[in-house]
């Protein structure tokens, strides 16, 4: 039978057959839930009862009218600030470790290690580091006489988001660094050699030759960072539970509370959809801002 079909047809059939399974899996575990989420965002549902009632855009109205939700979104911006710093730091270390530094492999491993660690383990670890009474950080501060700086890190509404932002930096900087490192090593050596022969200093070489060659990767890293910071969830959830007094609530912890604590799945779904839209908007802005670099 097969020899009656043309080669092109056989190829097509094969492609369809091979694609069937992944597409079915994708549809089942990603597309269907996503569409269901959008559907739920227009319904009023408590999460367990069999009946759902049509709510129209009420859920969305409520999301946009709720000041606390947007206050939580502002907390995400603190993480974004730390995320940008994290990228700069990652790039700095990548430039440093791309040189002929002694023991650079050991440094690379050390800096990348936090990323491999489990998020919950990291959270617990920093819980001990930043504990106000017997935490190692405050013990250090006190031992060098900086008692006034040894505050309750997770307890101060002003400090808490920055502490959490710092922990994300510590954890994800290694990932950024490794991606930058890979990009740096793919910069053609001819260009670098040419620049060196032209008498470029190390700083000039970094800024005017190397960086321009890796803009695409910088963009990618920013993309990952922005998504990560807008969707930050595990650290505040485990470490502070949104406290003190809601000072470290993020958009996602708020969404979870809306769904599971206040049994309002409709509004929580609307919040999730809003987050997706917000991510798209922020990423478009980023695309727009960085497009000029690559030209």
């Amino acid at each position, binding site marked *: 039978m097969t020899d009656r079909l043309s080669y092109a047809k056989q190829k097509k059939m094969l492609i369809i057959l091979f694609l069937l399974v992944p597409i079915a899996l994708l549809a089942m575990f990603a597309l269907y839930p996503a569409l269901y989420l959008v559907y739920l965002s227009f319904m009023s549902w408590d999460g367990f*009862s069999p009946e759902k009632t049509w709510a129209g855009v009420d859920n969305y109205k409520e999301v946009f009218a709720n000041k606390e939700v947007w206050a939580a979104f502002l907390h995400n911006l603190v993480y974004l600030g730390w995320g940008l710093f994290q990228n700069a730091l990652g790039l700095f270390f990548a430039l440093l470790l791309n040189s002929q530094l002694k023991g650079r492999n050991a440094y690379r491993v050390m800096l990348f290690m936090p990323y491999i660690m489990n998020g919950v383990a990291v959270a617990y670890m920093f819980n001990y580091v930043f504990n106000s009474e017997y935490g190692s950080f405050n013990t250090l501060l006190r031992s060098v006489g900086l008692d006034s700086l040894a505050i309750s890190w997770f307890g101060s509404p002003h400090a808490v988001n920055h502490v959490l932002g710092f922990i994300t930096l510590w954890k994800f900087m290694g990932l950024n660094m490794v991606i930058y490192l890979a990009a740096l090593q793919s910069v053609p050596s001819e260009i670098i050699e040419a620049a060196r022969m032209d008498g470029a200093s190390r700083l000039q070489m970094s800024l005017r030759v190397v960086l321009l060659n890796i803009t695409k990767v910088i963009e990618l890293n920013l993309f990952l960072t922005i998504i990560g910071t807008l969707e930050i969830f595990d650290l505040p959830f485990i470490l502070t539970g949104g*406290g003190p007094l809601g000072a470290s609530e993020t958009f996602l912890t708020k969404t979870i509370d809306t769904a599971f604590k*206040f049994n309002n799945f409709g509004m929580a779904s609307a919040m999730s959809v809003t987050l997706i839209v917000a991510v798209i908007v922020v990423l478009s802005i980023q695309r727009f801002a960085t497009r000029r670099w690559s030209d």
Partner: protein
Amino acid sequence: MKKNVAATMAMALGVGLLAGCGSANNDDANASASASAPAASASGSAAASPSGSASSGEAGAGDLKGTITWATHRTELVDTDLKKYVDAFEAKYPGTEVKIEGLKDYEQTIRVRMAANELPDVLSLVETTKSDLPKFYEPLDDLGLTDNIYFKDYNSYEGKLYGITQQVAINGLLYNKQAFEKAGITAPPKTLDELYADADKLKAAGIVPMATAFKDAWTLQYWTDPAEFIYGSTNLRNDKINSDAPFTVDGPYGQGLGILKNLFDKGELEKDVYSATWDQTQKDLASGKAAMMYIGNWAISNLISNGLPLEQIGFAPLPYDNSGTVKGMMRNDWAYAVSSTSKNKPLAKAFIKFMIEESGDYADHMIISPLKDQQQDLAPIADFMANKPEMLEAQAPSEQVTAVENKMQFDTFKFIQEVTVGKMQTVFDSYNKKWKAAKAAVAK
């Protein structure tokens, strides 16, 4: 490369098939369980005849067969004490099997299963609106316990009982007698002024007067009790519905929560409340670093396991004014319930009856049985009762109040935290505003 893709797909397919097998097996198990159900249910209704509550369990004993699943939130006891109770039950009724399932994230897990209509046979009841109770749970009136239990109205709807609280918790002032002695205090405070005076003495002695586990926040929820003492009944929460501004500084909420706030303002809670956790608080209370805590009697066993001997543990009613009369609050806990979709209801019910009446759970864990005729004779609880407090029974929030509270996203824990550390009037104003708006929205 292509090989890899093929291999991945094969794996994906394989996983899919395996998953399919798994669910098919489950179905078989359910089917066999349901096959034995009709015979058993006949005996169940026989047992329901009010011929005496103690004997009815044994009457049906011969016919109780099969397997049930018991989902519990008491994860730390699953492999030890709970296993012991299940073994005793299976020994009493040969041919039965109870599978224990300890769920760490209990409430959320069960809610998901509720939506999927896959509740385990016996479980700790997860609260729904009252009218939804019959949808998910089976009436338990035929156990013959209805008139002998505390909190029979809490999980009832239209005269039928859907859940029996697994224990009764009495809230009181739990204190370390050694710490009191060190500060020169001989007896627990009887009036509010005495409470404040004692707190001052403790602070002067370098002891944390009142522990709260403020960061964990759930431990704070009991501090609404004084507000209800002052109001005179546990209707306080439900009566909110009659007002557009239920939170007032000179009303029950302001006065009741004012006790905690006063202690906070004088620096008589933990030094850094924002890092005070329940784990640490238990240790501090046991070691005498902290002296008092307002919490349920069940915490007595926590102190013992942290090394404080029973005779050093004091338990007394919390004074809420200077009249000298005291009140005590009884709260319910998670309730035993049987799923309405259970395939083996008689066995599930017999198991609940066994757990409440015969398991020994209450003596083992020094907690109070929901059965009115079973006294807990533990010394601290006897001391508490010697004060002759007027006991109040907590009430289920009404459907309307729950709806408004969910609408305004009212978080009791956070509310109490904010009142304690913030300016009471400002906090109340913002909550009143939200309450009014949410109430109007729900009424629409």
